[in-house]
C-alpha cells in the first residue's frame, strides 16, 4: 500500500475511533483523498452553536505538502474569505509540517475561529470591520452563524427580519436607523450603504451628502 493511502486511512480511522474528539472526518465519495471535516463553533464566540464543514483535498505529495482546506459553510471571519471560504492560516502554507494531521489541522481551524488574526487577513473587508467595530462585527458573524451554520437564534436578539438584514450586510444598525429617519425606505438604505461599503474605516470617508445623493437616485 502506498504511504499516502496508509497514512490517510489511519488518520480517518483514528478520528472515527476517538469518541472524545470534537472534530469528525467523512468521505465525500469513495476516494480517501477528498474528504469533509466538521466541527462545532467554539464557545464564547459568535460562532457558538454553529456547525462548520470544511472541504479537504489530500494532495499527491501529502503529508510532505500541506493538505488543502477551505470552509464549505459560510463564515464571517477576517481570515476566511466570505466569498470562497478560502483560509489564511500559516500551517496550511509554509509552516506546514508532515507530522501535522487532518485532525490537528481541523482543531487549529476551530481555534482560529476563537482568535482571528486581522493583521494577516484573507478577507480585507471583514478584517477592517473586525478592527473598527467589534460589536457590529460580532453581530454580523453571529447572524451568519445562525443563517448558515445552524446556530440557535438567541431570544434577546432581534426577532425582526430587517435587523437581521442589517447584520447580514455587515452594517451598523445605528447608521441604517439614521438614514431611515430621514424618510428613506429601510431596504433602500441597506442597499445603498452596502453598495457604498459603509462599514468600519470607510464610514468617516463617506459623506452623508454622498449617501443621500445615492438614496435620491
Amino acid at each position: 500500500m502506498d504511504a499516502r493511502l496508509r497514512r490517510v486511512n489511519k488518520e480517518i480511522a483514528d478520528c472515527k475511533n476517538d469518541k472524545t474528539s470534537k472534530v469528525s472526518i467523512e468521505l465525500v465519495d469513495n476516494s480517501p483523498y477528498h474528504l469533509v471535516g466538521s466541527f462545532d463553533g467554539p464557545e464564547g464566540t459568535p460562532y457558538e452553536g454553529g456547525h462548520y464543514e470544511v472541504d479537504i483535498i489530500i494532495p499527491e505529495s501529502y503529508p510532505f505538502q500541506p493538505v488543502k482546506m477551505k470552509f464549505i459553510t459560510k463564515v464571517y471571519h477576517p481570515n476566511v474569505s466570505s466569498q470562497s471560504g478560502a483560509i489564511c492560516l500559516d500551517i496550511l502554507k509554509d509552516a506546514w509540517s508532515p507530522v501535522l494531521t487532518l485532525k490537528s489541522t481541523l482543531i487549529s481551524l476551530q481555534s482560529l475561529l476563537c482568535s482571528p488574526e486581522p493583521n494577516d487577513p484573507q478577507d480585507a473587508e471583514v478584517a477592517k470591520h473586525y478592527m473598527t467595530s467589534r460589536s457590529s462585527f460580532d453581530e454580523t458573524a453571529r447572524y451568519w452563524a445562525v443563517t448558515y451554520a445552524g446556530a440557535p437564534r438567541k431570544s434577546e436578539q432581534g426577532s425582526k427580519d430587517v435587523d437581521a438584514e442589517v447584520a447580514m450586510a455587515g452594517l451598523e444598525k445605528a447608521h441604517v436607523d439614521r438614514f431611515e429617519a430621514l424618510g428613506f425606505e429601510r431596504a433602500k438604505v441597506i442597499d445603498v450603504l452596502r453598495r457604498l461599503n459603509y462599514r468600519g474605516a470607510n464610514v468617516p470617508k463617506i459623506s452623508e451628502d454622498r449617501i443621500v445623493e445615492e438614496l435620491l437616485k
Partner: protein
Amino acid sequence: MDVDVFDTDYKMTARGRGKLYEVDHDSLSQADIERVMQKDVDHIKGVLDVDGDSASILLRHFNWNKEKLLEKYMDNATAVNEAAGLALPERSPQPGRSPRPQSTGPTRTTRRSTAESSKSGKTKAILERISPPVEEPQSFVCGICFDDSQTKYLALSCEHRFCTECWNAYITSKVRTEAEQWITCMADGCSLVASNLFVQQCLKKHPKTWERFQELLVRHFVSSNHSLKYCPYPSCTYTVSCPSAASKSSLTSMVPIVTCGASASHKFCFGCAIDNDHRPVVCGVAKLWMQKCQDDSETANWIKSNTKECSKCQSTIEKNGGCNHMTCKKCKYEFCWVCMGPWSEHGTAWYSCNRYDEKASVDARDAQSKSRASLERYLHYYNRWANHEQSAKLSVELYAKTEKKMEEMQMTSDLTWIEVQFMKKAVDEVSKCRTTLKWTYAMAYYLDSGNQKELFEDNQRDLERAVEELSELIEQPLDPEVVPTLRQKVTDKTVYVQKRNEIVLEDTAKGFLEGRWQWNQSVEGFD
C-alpha cells in the same frame, strides 16, 4: 568585398571590440560557481572554526554576505546558530517525541519568524552528527507514515526521528516541488536545517534529485550576488557574471545583453526579465513598452495577424516571409505591409514609413479625438514593432527557403557550398537587424519630440530601408543567369546593413552614456 573578410569582421563585432553597445561579461559553469562557493565556505570554516556544512548553512542564512555573517557571529554566536537552524533554542519541542500533542491553539507563528527572532536564553550547541540510519531495537513507528515495517530512521541533531523513506519523500518534495534548498526538520516547529551531507545521505538512491539540490544551492548563491545571473533558458545551468550591470543605476546608461557559455543563442538581458535582445532600448523603457502592449493588447491584436487585405482588390494576402514589400498575387498592386501604402513611394526621400506625424495629435482639440489620436499614435509604433517581431519569427521559414536556394545555386552555378554561405549570412543579418528595428519603435514611442528624436529616426529609417532592400534581394526568385551578380549585391548589401545597424546601436548607446535621450514620460531610473 570578400566573404572571408566579412566573416572576420563579424567575429570581431561579436567579441566586442570595445563597442559601446556591448557589455563585458563572463560565463561560468555550475562547477565554476561551486568552486567560488567552496572558497567562501573554506574562508568561513577557517575564521569561525566550524565544519564545512555548517559554514554553508551559515552563509546561506546570510545570503552569502560574509561580512554580515562575521559581524553578527562575533556579536552573538549563539543567536546566529539558532537563527540559522544550526542549533536548537533552549526551549524547543522535546527531542525524541512524536508530533506535539493535538494542539489547541492555532500555530500562528511561522517557522521563519521563530527562527529569526533572536531569543535571549541559552542555546545548547549541538554538533551536526551524521550517522548511518539507525536500526531501532524496540518497536519504532515513524510518526509520519505509521508504517511499522520501517525500521531504519534518521534524525538531525534534534533527534526528531523519522524513517528513511519519509525523509526521502520529504526532501524530494521540497527539492522537486518547491525548488527549496533550505530544508528544515520535519517535526512541527523544529527549525533545524538539514546539512548537505544529510540531504545527500537521504537521496543516496536518487542521484537526479541530489543533482537538482546542488543546482538549487548554486541558484541560491547566484541570486544572492548582484553581479551574477542564472541563464533563463530551460535546463541551462550556466551563470553569467556582469559586474558593470550589477547596480540599478547602471541600467540607465547601458543595455546589458549577455550570452551564456552553453550556446550563442542563450541571449538574455542581465538587467531585466526579458530573455532576449532588446537593444538599443534601455530596460526601463522596454518594460514600459511591454506593459503598454499588454494593456492594449486587444486593440492591437488584429495587427499581428498574418493576413491582410489588398487595398486595391480586397483579396486576402498572406505574409510568409520577412519582406515588407508585398505584391498582390491577383492585381499585382505593390504595397508596404506595414502602412499599406503604395511601395513606389517608399523608395523616395520624402516618404518615411517609420515616422509618426505628431501634428495630428497636437491638432486634436476635444478629449475624444485626443484619445483617438493617442491610440493612433500608439498603433503607429506598435504596428511597426509587431511587424518586425513577426518577421523575425518567420525567419525560420526563411532559413529553410534560403537553404533550398543555396542548394539550387550550387547546382546551377559553379559556386561551392562555402561560397553560397553569403545567403545564410544575409538572413542572419536581417533577423538580427529586425530585432534592433523592433525595439527602436519602442524607443521612438517614448522619445521626446525634437532634434534628437529626428536624428534617431533618421538612423532608424536608413537601417529599415537597407534591411528591406536586403530582405527583398534574398527573397526574390532565383535566376541562374544572375547568381554571380546577386552574390555581389547581397554581400555588399549585407555589409551595408551591418554598418547601419552598428550606427543605430552605437549612437543610441552613446546617447545613453551622454544622457542625451529625453523621454515624453517618466521612466524608472531617469529623473
